[in-house]
């Protein structure tokens, strides 16, 4: 089955790598079909004992399906699983756990009111009918010491941050004696610092002889922490790589199946006309504390200003003020010289402001609407969608929806499709189509590629640069420093409601930005 596809890029055979090691897990020819969709089409995965193995691929490549097969949540249509050189049949998570396979889910499965220790032992309490809290905590503490995982065993799970909750999940799996740990997108919910701490734990686990599978699509993480890489694409193997011998570009190529396009460098310099001019802007947060404490900046036509900063330093509030979604306490916001700081979103948008919000599922889109209906959100009372503003024209809405769906590469390009059923990337394309199709003067963009895969991210970036080329002013808020540095002409760093520095993209190294984001203005100067 596998040999029939010689075109597959197979850098190294499983046996050629780490020959001194025995394969702990061998999955061969795994197939799984859901309705019309062949989710896995003969996938192989070989994981050696004591390694950190990355399982990478775009959204929909089959990574999670493959792991759910291994964990017994799905039953494969065909294929074999060998574990410790024995053929095994895994019919449910119970079998997997008995074999020593543990899964750390992306969405934690914890009981919030219980303590850390109680959560760890839940379902496997051991001992008599009476729960001995102290003994349990001792046992959990022992586990924590061995693997250098710090969480207070007596703390309630609902009181601890996500990063620590994830450690509880890891402890749970270790407590059950797992030898092979599967991490499903473990960094999706973590802050950059928590990611570093997680990686330290992951390395300790490897030193302690555990084997780890890391499901991810973030290449930076793959390069930082893994030993070997299996790439999936469209439900098939698209490459096996050794981390030390490969590059992010090579992995990306295997994931996407083609060369990544180089972002067209900012060919034209920004023009001179100032589009957005913000002076002394102040605003309160939802809780009533000062969120913006006097912000000054301007963006010119054909310029992208990146806003860097650790989340929660006023970036969201700034975007909301620009749109008229948040009350401006003091200061002015001028678009082409006209103060819009008191305008509501409708009037702000009428001035040529477009918005790609942070959370496309809640703020960007009405998920239950069709693609065509979401394209006209905010334009429903204007021709051609509403003749003379009173009666909707369904034919015109559908026609425009079909045209935009094609123009913005929404797949499937069906204006009647329900937006909730689209992938994240296609949902974002609907947002872009709505916001960019009317030649906006100012585009406020917040986390435009969060959760998107490589191809969709590339698409979003191209579209933003295209708008820049057409003379739009763009404010880009992103927690991805790479994204900010790749797209921005200038980068403003926000810290505690202020802009602490504005750097030229050329001089903004990651180190400098990192220091500024952490509030070290002097050190970075």
């Amino acid at each position, binding site marked *: *089955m*596998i040999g*029939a*596809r010689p*075109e597959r890029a197979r850098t190294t055979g499983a046996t050629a790598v780490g020959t001194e090691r025995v394969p702990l897990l061998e999955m061969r020819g795994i197939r799984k079909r*859901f*309705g*019309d*969709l062949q*989710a896995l*089409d003969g996938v192989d995965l070989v994981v050696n004992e004591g390694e950190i193995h990355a399982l990478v691929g*775009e*959204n*929909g490549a*089959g*990574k*999670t399906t493959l792991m759910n097969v291994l964990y017994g949540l799905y039953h494969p249509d065909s294929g074999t699983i060998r574990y410790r050189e024995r053929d095994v049949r895994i019919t449910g998570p119970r079998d997997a756990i008995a074999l020593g396979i543990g899964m750390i889910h*992306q969405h934690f499965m914890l009981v919030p009111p219980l303590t850390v220790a109680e959560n760890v032992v839940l379902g496997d309490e051991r001992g008599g009918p009476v729960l001995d809290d102290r003994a349990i905590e001792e046992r959990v503490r022992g586990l924590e010491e061995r693997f250098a995982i710090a969480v207070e065993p007596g703390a309630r799970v609902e009181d601890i941050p996500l990063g620590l909750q994830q450690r509880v999940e890891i402890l749970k799996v270790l407590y059950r004696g797992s030898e092979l740990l599967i991490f499903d*997108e473990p960094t999706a919910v973590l802050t950059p610092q928590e990611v570093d701490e997680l990686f330290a734990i992951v390395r300790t686990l490897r030193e302690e002889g555990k084997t780890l599978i890391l499901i991810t699509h973030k290449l930076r993480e793959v390069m930082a922490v893994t030993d070997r890489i299996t790439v999936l*694409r*469209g439900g*098939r193997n698209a490459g096996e790589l050794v981390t030390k011998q490969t590059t992010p570009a090579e992995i990306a190529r295997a994931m*996407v199946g*083609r060369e990544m396009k180089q972002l067209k460098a900012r060919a034209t310099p920004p023009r001179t006309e100032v589009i957005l001019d913000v002076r002394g802007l102040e605003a309160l947060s939802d809780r009533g504390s000062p969120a913006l404490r006097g912000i000054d900046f301007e963006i010119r036509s054909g310029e992208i200003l990146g806003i860097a900063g650790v989340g929660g330093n006023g970036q969201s509030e700034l975007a909301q003020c620009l*749109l008229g*979604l948040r009350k401006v306490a003091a200061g002015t916001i001028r678009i082409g010289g006209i103060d819009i700081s008191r305008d*509501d*979103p*409708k009037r702000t*948008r009428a001035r040529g402001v477009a*918005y790609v*919000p942070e959370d496309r599922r809640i703020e*960007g*889109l*009405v*998920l*239950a*609407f069709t693609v065509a*209906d979401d394209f*006209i*959100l*905010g334009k*429903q*009372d204007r021709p051609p*969608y*509403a003749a003379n*503003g*009173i009666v*909707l024209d*369904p034919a015109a809405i559908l026609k425009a929806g079909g045209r935009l769906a094609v123009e913005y590469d929404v*797949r*499937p390009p069906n204006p009647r499709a*329900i937006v909730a*059923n689209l*992938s*994240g*990337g296609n949902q974002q394309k609907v947002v872009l189509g709505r916001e960019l199709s009317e030649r906006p003067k100012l585009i406020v963009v917040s986390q435009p590629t969060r959760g998107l*895969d490589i*191809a*969709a991210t590339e698409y979003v970036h191209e579209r933003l640069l295209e708008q820049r080329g057409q003379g739009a002013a763009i404010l880009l808020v992103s927690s991805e420093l790479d994204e900010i540095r790749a797209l921005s002409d200038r980068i403003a760093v926000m810290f505690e409601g202020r802009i602490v520095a504005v750097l030229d993209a050329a001089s903004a190294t990651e180190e400098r930005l990192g220091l500024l984001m952490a509030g070290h203005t002097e050190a970075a100067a």
Partner: protein
Amino acid sequence: MASEPQATPTGPATAPSVRQPTAQWARGPAVPVASVVFALAIGAIFVLLSGHDPIAAYIDLFRGAFGSPYDITETLIQTIPLVLAGLAVAVAFRTGLFNIGAESQLLIGAVAAGAVGARFADLPGFVLFPMVLAAGIGAGAGWAAIAGYLKAARGVNEVITTIMQNYIVVFVMHWLLQNGPMTAPNALGTPASAPIGAGAVLPIIIPNELVPLTRLHAGIFLAIAAVVVFWFLLWRTPLGYELRAVGLGARAAAQAGIDPRTRIVIAMAIAGGFAGLAGMIQVTGVFHRVFDGFSSGYGFDAIAVALLGKNSPIGIALAALLFGAFARGGSIMQANAGVSAQLVSVIEAVVLFVIAAELIVRVLTARRRERKPLEAIA
């Protein structure tokens, strides 16, 4: 299969959705129909337990509702206020609001219509009728808009306010009609208002020779018109689009320049207008005056009607007809088969139960999908 060449790299975007079938199934009429069948089966058990023949009881129920032209017209008379009150619940629901106050909006519409109709009884019909119509719709709209305003401006839960408004109107009606300012001078102890002027009375639309003694009045045309207005408003006007957008995604609507607060007030006012029209029609078409306690809880049955009808125009019309038939047929069944008309309440309750259960299932499955990201399927 394995040797099938992988065509041009299309990326993940082409991964088709496997979630659609379930969603589409839930959108169809399967669940409402199944819930009614199930409810009838449960009802049959209760009939058996009370020592009667369920088949005979249901035959009586059906005959009572549709057995003769007269019965059909009586069923339709019951259906009219249910349709309108059902629309009142549905407009709010489409905007993301739970309007429990259709009953009080209906009652206040009836009171206003009755008061205007009696006070200006001498005016000619072409003046009086529009006045009474406006009074009924306006009173319901204004009353419901209060709950909408409190929600929009102060964040007060509309479920609470509309329930409390029900109590207010019920007791104000007691006061008005039991020896109060609206009580008819010659009422002789009947808690009722003076009759409305002849010009405000809705005419009987079927000649007596065709269906003897029928009371079916022109209000049925108003109800049909209201269903059409409901559909047109929600799916063919920018306002309706905005209401639906607010109902399905308030924050998305807000950032696009559709202020949910104003739309909430408007939606409640429209809802109250439909319910007020229902009350006005009961006064001008059926009673020709206001009785204390004339409504048998149309505004509450309306919640079931809207849910069973999935807040769609045709669905609401059909569900209202079903509940109208239950109301009419139930009393006949009680008279003939000796089965308590309360059976009808049991059946209605089971229908609601099943619909609510389906909603719960849908919410739960939606959550499970949330937990397993798209990748888990694709």
